[in-house]
C-alpha cells in the first residue's frame, strides 16, 4: 500500500506541477501578446506598421455620404477631399486663398454674352450680361484609381457588368473583387457629374442654388424625373438610369478634354464652386457598377466606396472601426508648391518645394468618439495631430501677458508644435427681425438691439467658454475674407470705440442710455410700466449649456433686462426658426468659399428663412442692403466692390440684426515628425502635401511608452497578503468546529 500511496503522491505532484506550469504559461502569455515585437504593450496598431509611412488620424462619427454630389460636411470632406478632384484647387500655402488649376490645364476662360448670344467685353455691365460661359480644359493623361468598375476581360469588355445577385456570393467589400482597372479622366466625367445634381434619386444640397444659375438645370430635373418614373414603371429597381441619353443645355462637352458650363447672368462665384467636390468628375462606369442587383444589400455603393482621381483612394471603409486611404498608384504628376506666403520658408514649409506628391503612403482613420482617449493617445504618439480639447486646454496651452497663445513646457518638451488660425466662420446671436419687440426697422427696436449688443460681452464669452479661441466679430465677415478689416477702421462703432490703440466695448452706461432712449429706462417699459422680457430660443441641455444660459442672463441683467431661456429640442427649435417665431437665437455659418458674398447673403432679404426658406435666419430685409448685395455679388474683387462691401457693412452695423458674435480660432497641435502642416480652411485635398518622419515617430513612441509593471506586482502581493488573515481565520474556525480541512 505504501508504493500505491507513493504513486499517488507522485501523480499529485506531477498534476500540481502541470497546473503551476499552466498558470505560469497563462501569466506569461498575456504580456507576450501585449508586447508584440516592438515592446510597446499599449500600441494600438500592428507592429508591422511601426516604421511605415502611415499617417494616423481619427473620426468621431461615421460619414453619411461619400458621394461628392451629396456630401456637404467637413467630416465627409476629410475623406472625399483626398479622393475626388474638381478642376480647381486652393493654393496650399498662399494667403489670402488663391485658386489654381488642379485637373484643369489652366484657369477657366470666361466669356460673357448678351441676350442675343453676342460676346461682350470682360468689363461689360452685369445688367447686360445674359449668360456667362466657363470653358474648362483638363489635363490629358489623368487616370482613376484602381476600381473593379474599370476591370475588363481579355476581350476588353467590362468584367463586372450585368451581374446577378448570385454572382456576388462571397463578396462583402470592394476589395473582394479579384480584378480592377482604370481609365483616363475625360471632360465627359465632369459633365456627367453636373447632370447628377438633378438626378431624381440623388439629393444634392446645392441643386437649389445651381438651378438658379446653370442654364436649363431646373427643367432638366423635371425631364429626368419623368424619364425615371417611366423606367421605374417597366423595370425593377435597382437599374442603371442613363443620364447620357438626356442632354443638359447649360453643360456641354466640347471635346475629350474640354467642357463648358453656361450660367445665367454674371456669377463670378462659380470659380469657387469649381474647387468643391460637387464639381468633381464621376465616371459613368462606377454608377453602372453600383446600380447592379445585390450591390446595395452589401453596402457597395458610391456613398461607401468613392471613385476618383485624387492622391488617395479608400481601401477599407468600416465606419464602425476604421477607414483607410491608400496612395493612388495612378496619381498624376503633382508637385509641392515652390512659393508661399511670407514666413513659410522660415517655418520650414518650403523644404519639400518642387517634390512630387503625395509623401504619405497610407492614412488610417480610427473611430474615436471621445476626446479624452484621443488626447491621451496623441500624447503617447499614436496620433500625429490633434485639436486642443477643453478638458486638457490648460495642460497644452497657456497665454502670455500679451495674450499670445503658446505651448506649455510639458508640450514643448515633447516637441509638439502649435498652429492657430481664425476660421472662416461666424457664430452670432441673431435678432428675429419679424419679432414685434426686437425686430423691425423702428428706431426703438434698433436702439434696443444696439443696447443688447453692447451688454453681451463677447470677449468675456470667448475667454470663459472658448479658452480664448475666438475673435470678437465686428460684422458678418471673418478674417481672411475680402472686406474684413483689422484695427480702427474695422470696428463696429455702435458697439466699440477706439481707445488706447485698441477696440474697447462701449460701457454699460451707454447701453443703459440707449435702452432708456428706446423707451425702456432701467429695463421698464415706459408706457406700460412692465419689465422688459426678452426670450432666447435655444436647443441644448448639457451642464455646459446651463453655464452658457446663466452667463447670457447675467449679460442682460447688466442693463436690467430679463432674459428668459426657451430651451427646446432640436426639431422644435428648427420649427420656430422656420416659422420666424424665435426672438433671440444663436446661429452660425461656415464659409463655402472665401468670398464676402458667401456671408453677406446671410443678411439678404430675399434669402430670409421664414419667408423664403433661405439662410437669412434673422429675416433681415433692408432694401438698400439688398440692392447693394445684388450689385456686389456679380462683381469681381476691385476697389469699387470693396467700397460697396464697406457700405453694406455700415448698413448692417447700423441696423444691428445680429449681435455680431465671434469668429472661432482653430488651435492645432502636431508632433515634430509631422511636416508641412499648414491649416487650410478652404482646401480639402491637403493630405497629399503632408509628410511623416516614421523613424522619429518610432523613437518617440519607444521613449514615451515603456510599460511600468511594478504597480501590478505590488497589487498582486497586497492581494495575496490580504488573503493570509482570511486563510488563518478559516483554518482556525474549521479546526475549532472539529471539521476536516480541505
Amino acid at each position: 500500500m505504501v508504493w500505491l500511496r507513493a504513486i499517488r503522491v507522485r501523480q499529485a505532484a506531477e498534476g500540481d506541477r502541470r497546473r503551476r506550469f499552466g498558470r505560469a504559461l497563462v501569466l506569461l502569455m498575456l504580456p507576450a501578446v501585449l508586447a508584440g515585437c516592438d515592446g510597446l504593450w499599449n500600441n494600438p496598431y500592428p507592429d508591422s506598421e511601426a516604421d511605415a509611412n502611415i499617417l494616423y488620424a481619427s473620426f468621431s462619427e461615421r460619414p453619411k455620404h461619400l458621394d461628392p454630389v451629396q456630401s456637404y460636411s467637413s467630416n465627409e470632406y476629410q475623406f472625399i477631399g483626398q479622393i475626388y478632384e474638381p478642376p480647381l484647387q486652393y493654393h496650399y500655402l498662399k494667403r489670402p486663398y488663391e485658386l489654381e488649376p488642379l485637373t484643369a490645364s489652366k484657369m477657366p476662360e470666361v466669356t460673357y454674352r448678351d441676350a442675343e448670344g453676342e460676346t461682350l467685353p470682360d468689363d461689360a455691365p452685369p445688367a447686360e450680361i445674359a449668360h456667362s460661359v466657363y470653358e474648362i480644359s483638363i489635363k490629358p493623361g489623368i487616370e482613376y484609381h484602381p476600381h473593379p468598375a474599370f476591370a475588363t476581360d481579355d476581350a476588353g469588355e467590362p468584367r463586372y457588368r450585368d451581374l446577378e445577385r448570385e454572382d456576388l456570393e462571397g463578396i462583402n467589400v470592394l476589395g473582394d473583387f479579384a480584378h480592377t482597372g482604370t481609365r483616363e479622366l475625360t471632360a465627359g466625367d465632369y459633365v456627367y457629374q453636373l447632370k447628377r445634381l438633378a438626378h431624381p434619386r440623388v439629393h444634392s444640397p446645392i441643386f437649389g442654388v445651381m438651378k438658379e444659375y446653370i442654364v436649363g438645370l431646373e427643367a432638366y430635373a423635371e425631364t429626368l424625373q419623368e424619364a425615371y418614373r417611366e423606367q421605374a414603371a417597366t423595370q425593377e429597381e435597382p437599374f442603371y438610369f442613363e443620364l447620357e441619353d438626356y442632354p443638359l443645355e447649360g453643360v456641354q462637352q466640347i471635346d475629350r478634354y474640354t467642357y463648358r458650363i453656361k450660367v445665367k447672368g454674371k456669377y463670378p462665384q462659380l470659380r469657387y464652386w469649381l474647387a468643391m467636390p460637387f464639381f468633381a468628375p464621376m465616371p459613368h462606369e462606377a454608377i453602372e457598377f453600383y446600380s447592379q442587383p445585390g450591390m446595395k444589400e452589401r453596402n457597395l455603393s458610391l456613398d461607401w466606396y468613392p471613385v476618383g482621381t485624387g492622391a488617395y483612394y479608400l481601401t477599407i471603409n468600416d465606419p464602425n472601426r476604421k477607414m483607410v486611404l491608400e496612395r493612388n498608384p495612378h496619381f498624376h504628376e503633382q508637385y509641392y508648391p515652390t512659393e508661399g506666403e511670407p514666413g513659410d520658408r522660415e517655418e520650414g514649409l518650403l523644404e519639400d518645394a518642387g517634390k512630387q506628391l503625395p509623401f504619405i503612403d497610407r492614412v488610417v482613420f480610427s473611430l474615436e468618439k471621445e476626446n479624452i482617449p484621443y488626447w491621451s493617445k496623441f500624447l503617447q504618439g499614436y496620433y500625429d495631430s490633434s485639436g486642443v480639447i477643453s478638458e486638457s486646454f490648460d495642460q497644452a496651452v497657456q497665454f502670455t501677458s500679451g495674450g499670445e497663445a503658446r505651448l506649455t513646457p510639458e508640450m514643448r518638451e515633447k516637441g509638439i508644435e502649435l498652429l492657430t488660425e481664425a476660421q472662416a466662420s461666424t457664430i452670432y446671436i441673431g435678432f428675429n427681425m419679424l419679432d414685434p419687440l426686437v425686430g423691425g426697422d423702428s428706431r426703438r427696436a434698433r436702439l434696443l438691439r444696439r443696447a443688447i449688443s453692447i451688454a453681451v460681452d463677447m470677449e468675456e464669452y470667448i475667454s470663459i467658454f472658448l479658452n480664448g479661441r475666438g475673435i470678437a466679430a465686428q460684422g458678418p465677415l471673418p478674417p481672411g475674407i475680402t472686406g474684413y478689416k483689422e484695427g480702427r477702421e474695422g470696428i463696429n462703432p455702435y458697439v466699440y470705440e477706439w481707445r488706447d490703440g485698441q477696440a474697447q466695448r462701449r460701457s454699460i452706461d451707454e447701453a443703459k442710455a440707449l435702452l432708456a432712449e428706446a423707451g425702456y429706462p432701467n429695463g421698464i417699459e415706459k408706457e406700460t410700466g412692465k419689465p422688459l422680457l426678452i426670450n432666447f430660443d435655444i436647443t441644448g441641455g448639457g451642464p455646459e449649456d446651463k453655464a452658457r444660459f446663466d452667463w447670457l442672463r447675467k449679460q442682460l441683467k447688466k442693463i436690467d433686462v430679463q432674459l428668459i431661456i426657451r430651451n427646446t429640442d432640436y426639431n422644435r427649435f428648427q420649427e420656430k426658426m422656420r416659422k420666424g417665431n424665435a426672438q433671440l437665437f444663436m446661429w452660425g455659418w461656415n464659409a463655402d468659399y472665401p468670398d464676402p458674398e458667401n456671408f453677406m447673403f446671410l443678411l439678404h432679404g430675399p434669402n430670409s428663412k421664414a419667408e423664403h426658406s433661405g439662410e437669412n435666419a434673422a429675416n433681415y430685409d433692408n432694401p438698400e442692403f439688398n440692392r447693394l448685395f445684388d450689385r456686389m455679388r456679380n462683381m469681381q474683387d476691385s476697389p469699387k466692390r470693396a467700397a460697396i462691401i464697406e457700405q453694406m457693412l455700415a448698413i448692417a452695423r447700423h441696423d444691428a440684426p445680429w449681435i455680431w458674435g465671434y469668429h472661432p480660432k482653430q488651435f492645432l497641435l502636431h508632433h515634430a515628425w509631422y511636416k508641412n502642416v499648414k491649416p487650410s480652411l478652404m482646401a480639402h485635398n491637403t493630405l497629399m502635401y503632408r509628410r511623416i518622419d516614421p523613424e522619429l515617430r518610432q523613437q518617440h513612441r519607444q521613449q514615451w511608452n515603456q510599460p511600468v509593471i511594478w504597480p501590478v506586482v505590488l497589487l498582486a502581493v497586497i492581494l495575496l497578503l490580504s488573503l493570509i488573515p482570511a486563510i488563518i481565520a478559516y483554518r482556525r474556525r474549521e479546526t475549532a468546529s472539529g471539521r476536516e480541512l480541505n
Partner: protein
Amino acid sequence: MFAYIIRRLFYAIPILIGVNLITFALFFVVNSPDDMARMHLGDKRVTQEAIEKWKTDRGYEKPLLYNSDTDGLNKFTETIFFTKSVRLFVFDFGSADDGRDIGYDIKQRMWPSLAIALPVFLVGLLINITFALLLAFFRATYIDVWGVVLCVVLMSISAMFYIIGGQYLIGKLMNLVPISGFDLVGIETVKFLVLPVLIGVVMGIGSGTRWYRTIFLEEIGRDYVRTARAKGLSELRVLFKHVLRNALIPILTGVVVVIPLLFLGSLLTESFFGIPGLGSYTIDAIQAQDFAIVRAMVFLGSVLYIIGLLLTDISYTVADPRIRLS
C-alpha cells in the same frame, strides 16, 4: 416542455407588435418625417423640395397609421407603420437612412460587443459569486463588514470614473494596454479587450457581490445547511456544493435573462474604448433620427429579452428537477 415553448413563442407575437407600436408612437411624437429629412439632409441649403424628395425615396411620404386616401385594407397597409414594421417579423431590417443595410451592420457589430460582454459576464459571475460566498462564510466578522463597505464604495463610483480612471492609470501611466481601439487580429485582439473587460468586471463587483451575498445568507440559515454541517462537512463544501446549488434559482433568474442581451453591448464602454459594437448603435440612431435603426434595434432587443425569459424558465428545470414546464 416543447408545447410550453411553442405557446410562449406565440405569446411573443402580440408583445412584439405592442413594442413596435409603442416605439413607433414614441418616435413620431418627437420627430416628424420632415424633421428626419432635415436631420439627414443637414443644416445648409435645405429646400422643401429636397425634403419631399427624401421622404418619397424612403417611403415617409405616407400617413403614419391611417391612410384615408385609399380603400379597404389599404387604409392600414399603405401607411408608414405597416410598411416599416411588417418586414421586421421576418428579421428583414431594411436599410438605414444613409443607405446602409441594417442587418449587415448588426451582424458586423454584435461580435465586438460580445467579445467584451461575454468575458465580463463570465469572469464577473465567477468573481462575484466567489466573493459573495467568502463574505457569507465570514458573515458578521470584520471581513464581512469591510467587504460590504468595499462593495458599497465600488457601487458608488460612476462608470465614467472607472473608465477614465482605468484608461489613465493602466493605459496612460503604466502603458500596459492600448487606451482605446479595436482590431480583429487574432490573438492580438486580446490586448484591446483586457482593459474594458477588467473595468467591466470591477464595475460589477459591488452590486453583484451584494446581491449574491443576500441570496447566500438567506440559504445559509436553512435546515439542510445545518444538516450538512452536522454531518461534519467542511464549510467550503457546504457553501460551494450545497448552498450554491440551492441558491441557483434566484441566481438564474437574474443571470440567464441577460445572456442574449450580451449581443447588444454597452454604450459607455464601447464609446470610450472605440469598440465598434452595438452599444452605441441605437443611441446614435436616436440622435440621427434614423427610425429604421431605432425600430430594428428595439425589435431585436425585445426578441432577445423574450428569448432570455424563455431560457430562464428552461434553466429552472435543469437546476431543480422538481420544476416542470407545462
